[in-house]
């Protein structure tokens, strides 16, 4: 007996509906539920909560390169960020993964005027950069899988389970805050036990083929701790709080002092504010 395509599809369709399809799914999964019900969720009472997490970076408090390095190291070791080095010991820029990093004034604030008579001090100053957790993030707009998204608290978060590694977000982010895992991060010398590395067993690593960045330490906020960089930086250098709360320390600084943000003209609404001159606050 011969069968044309149309007949085959009819038989296949009907038999899959009758034989397998719905009945099979409900028979094998009587207790299946697509997501947790509200009554199954119980948020940690100690967790820190805000309507808009934001950060003020007081550049006057970063005095030495060591201040930068210990801040970076605290973040990167807690979050199992791989440190890829070339054989000569320098950072492998092609493979580099960074959540928080040090950069120059002209790279951090390319739109700002660099007049001949501008403060040499500021022009030569290194800056502490990280994800700006924008109000209107370009990375979230372009992500085709919704692997990166905004949390209610204003944090731009990403879901490594959903990331397909297309790197649209990296192209979209004007701050260079995102890094791609070209190779298995566990092969990096600082994470691979065979090379003398050590992982933080309380936090996952990432895998090859996903994009990662700073998360404002959501996992630490959830247990009532401040972000790792805030704790590690010199006192008062990184201030973290709720920008939506008029009484918060960072809101007062942003309201009363002159702070600058990176590339505000792009309309992304960065939530990291830079205080250049410093002063007697905090």
């Amino acid at each position, binding site marked *: 007996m011969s069968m044309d395509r149309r007949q085959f599809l009819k038989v296949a369709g009907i038999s899959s509906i009758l034989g397998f399809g719905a009945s099979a799914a409900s028979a094998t*999964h009587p*207790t299946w539920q697509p*997501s947790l019900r509200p009554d*199954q*969720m119980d948020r940690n009472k100690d967790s820190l909560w805000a309507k808009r997490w934001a950060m003020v970076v007081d550049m006057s408090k970063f005095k030495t390169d060591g201040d930068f390095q210990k801040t970076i190291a605290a973040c990167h070791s807690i979050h199992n960020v791989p440190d890829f080095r070339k054989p000569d010991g320098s950072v492998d820029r092609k493979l580099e993964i960074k959540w928080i990093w040090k950069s120059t004034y002209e790279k951090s604030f390319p739109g700002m005027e660099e007049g001949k008579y501008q403060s040499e001090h500021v022009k030569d100053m290194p800056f502490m950069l990280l994800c700006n957790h924008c109000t209107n993030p370009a990375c979230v707009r372009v992500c085709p899988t919704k692997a990166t998204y905004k949390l209610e608290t204003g944090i731009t978060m990403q*879901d490594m389970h959903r990331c397909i590694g297309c790197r649209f977000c990296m192209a979209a982010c004007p701050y260079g805050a995102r890094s791609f895992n070209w190779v298995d991060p566990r092969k990096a010398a600082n994470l691979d036990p065979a090379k003398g590395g050590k992982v933080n067993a309380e*936090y996952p690593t990432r895998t090859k083929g996903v994009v990662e960045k700073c998360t404002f330490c*959501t996992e630490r906020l*959830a247990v009532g701790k401040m972000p790792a960089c805030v704790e590690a930086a010199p006192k008062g250098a990184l201030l973290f709080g709720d920008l939506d709360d008029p009484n918060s320390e960072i809101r007062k600084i942003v309201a009363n002092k002159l702070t600058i943000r990176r590339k505000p003209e792009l309309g992304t609404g960065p939530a990291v504010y830079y205080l250049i001159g410093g002063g007697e606050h905090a």
Partner: protein
Amino acid sequence: MKIYNKGPVFLGIAIFLALALFPFYNNFGKTNKKPEPKTDTPAIMEYEKLNGKKECVEPKEYMRAEHMVLINNWRDAVVRDDNRGYKSSTGKRWNMSLQNECMRCHSNKKKFCDECHNYMAVKPFCWDCHIQPVEKEEARS
């Protein structure tokens, strides 16, 4: 009907069948060892001593059938809703975390997770990113 090159043709068919059916006759009559996941880690024994019973997040039967659904739901709640507390049907509160809660008790991934997953030939990719507990005794043997 005449068949040309009878000898090589039937020999070829015989060799093909011998190879194709190898798994069937080779394993005929043998029984596979049943998977026996172990719940005898120090953390679980300690829990049993304190509470007089072994107890997982949800009842055993539910966990056996639906742990993958539960874990997926935990993942979505934590990652997407920033919510890390789970209220179980047993009334207890659990921290939704694979590395820090599941594996805190089930620190024997090889004898617990892999035992069934290997038997069923399922390969969840949890451990590409999540860090599995160090299993000292396993490494020594």
